[in-house]
């Protein structure tokens, strides 16, 4: 498990110059469920991408397991992302030419472990009620099913941290809720740290901790005493 510390992260965009994040610092403990909320343009997605190493900050450090991830060489960063991070985005980004099973196995192919984790992939699909979709291609599935496959894919390598960027953004409320329940279950059962970006207060309320951003600054950091509800 990993704890994530970010120290005075600043992110500026050039042309036009915008200060997206203005010195953000906070720690996330192992197994936390954190919701990052805020209006669009508040910098919450940018913060998530910086935390996950997909984006680089203008200044500041993100320390995971005591190491600044921006100091890691590219290959090591890729390996880290592959084995210890999971991503769920607003869009499912499934590869259209692969079946859902192959899609779920895709991260494992990077390390040629797809045979090893095949059982686990099937189990994940079962767990998410996707047994009937195993051999289907993304185009043959509903939006909710696609996003659930995407979640299964993010979990195949057993990540320590799951990054979710508006994972319910394109779903109706029934499916959205389902995804949220899945995230909570993952957090509960496997102790995976979940960092969720959302602008829906209902979903944010599920998290044990809510970090609210306004104009690139944390203006509220609310922890629940009891994990879960």
């Amino acid at each position, binding site marked *: 498990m990993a704890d994530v510390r970010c120290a005075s992260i600043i992110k500026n965009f050039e042309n036009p110059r915008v200060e997206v994040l203005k010195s953000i610092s906070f720690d996330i403990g192992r197994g936390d469920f954190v919701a990052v909320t805020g209006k669009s343009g508040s910098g919450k*997605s940018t913060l998530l*991408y910086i935390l*996950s190493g*997909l*984006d680089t900050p203008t200044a500041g450090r993100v320390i995971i397991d005591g190491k600044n991830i921006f100091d890691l060489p*590219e*290959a090591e960063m*890729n*390996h*880290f*992302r*592959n*084995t210890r*991070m999971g*991503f769920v*985005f*607003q*869009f499912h*980004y*499934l*590869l*259209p*030419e*692969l079946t859902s099973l*192959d899609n779920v196995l*895709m*991260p494992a*192919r*990077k390390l040629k472990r797809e045979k090893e984790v095949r059982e686990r992939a099937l189990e994940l699909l079962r767990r998410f009620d996707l047994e009937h979709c195993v051999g289907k291609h993304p185009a043959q599935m509903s939006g909710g099913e696609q996003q659930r496959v995407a979640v299964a*894919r993010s979990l195949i390598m057993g990540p320590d941290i799951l990054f979710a*960027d*508006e994972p319910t*953004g394109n779903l109706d409320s029934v499916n959205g809720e389902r995804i949220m329940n899945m995230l909570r279950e993952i957090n509960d059962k496997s102790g995976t740290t979940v960092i969720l970006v959302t602008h829906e207060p209902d979903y944010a309320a599920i998290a044990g901790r809510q970090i609210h951003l306004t104009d690139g600054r944390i203006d509220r950091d609310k922890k629940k005493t009891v994990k879960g509800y």
Partner: protein
Amino acid sequence: MWFLALKQLRSRLSQTVLTFIGITLGAAAYITFAGMMGGYQQYMIDKLINNDAHVRISPRDEFITKETFAGIFFPESDIKWINPPSGRIEYTHLSSVPTWFKKLDRDPRVVAYSPQIIRDVIYTSKKFSIPGRFIGMDPNRETRVTTIARYVTAGNFSDVSKGISLIIVGDELMKKLGARVNDTIDIVTATGTAAPVKIVGTIRTGMRMIDERYGYSSLASVQSITGSSGEITDIAIRLKDVNMARAVATELAGDSTDRVESWDQANESILFVFRTQNIVRNSTTLTIILVVAFGIYNVLNMSVNHRKKEIAILRSMGYGQQDIILLFLYQGLILGFLGSLFGMLLGWAGCSYIESIPIAVSGSRRGWVSASHMLISWDVMIYVNAFVLVTLSSVVASFIPARSAGRLSPLEIIRGAG
């Protein structure tokens, strides 16, 4: 990445097939083209090598120019000629034949050599007279050096040495003289003396230059008829290894006053034509390959643009730039590899078909330049070249889109979509 590369190729099957057909046709066209040209050239070169000497020693032509006298008169000063000198130094025969013989006898690279005397004469019979060459040689030696004896259509090549003043002539020459075998014709030399010779046979090589102009006789006959007793004008040499011809010629020439030429030096003009042909062939090949490469580039470029999101998600799950580059490079490689493989088959089939097309050159089957069908080169190198060129250019062409795919920032794609 192979797995995904194959899946991606399959998912855009029609494009894949079209590109594949393009590559196949490109490779096949190259092979057929190269096969046809190569076949013709190889045939011609074979003829040149086998029908004439590998190396020929002949008297040198030397012309007198300003340079001839450079440093002779007034070596210290700059000379301006009012009337520059002109003229020719005559060497009608080889300078030192016995020295040559000794040298050639000792040389282990020489298989055989044949001394000849070649004179320009006028063949006359009744009221016809035709200028031609009168060649004296030893038939036994000559047959070991050149293939001329193979083209004898009447009589025997060795018959000329069975007596004095016997000749074997080109069959066209005999026809034009209105003569027949066993007829006697006259030979008029440069000095105007005429001598009768008897036709004992004919040759037909398919080369008009020989068939219409050449007459072969014994050394003694030619020497006596042309009044040049004991003179030798040429030595034709056959080597163990024809590829050594140029080197041997250069070495023999050494400090001799005679001209020593290898077959390829003597036939420079034909080889120049071949070189021109090769340039044409290579530029055609280049065009074909460019078209193929652009096809691949186009398809993969579109593919990259269509798959930006997928590239982004692959990057987010830990695939590096190299992986993405490989993903597209593999697609180009698969297309190029399979395309050139099938292209080789198709090219081979095309060559086989073309080889079966009957053609008729010169009407005779026994001549040098005559073939009953199209000549095709089956040189393995053509196939190897086609394969390497096409596969390589596929990889190069796919590298550009692959690299641009690798450079895509996953974040910008995701942000752009969200």
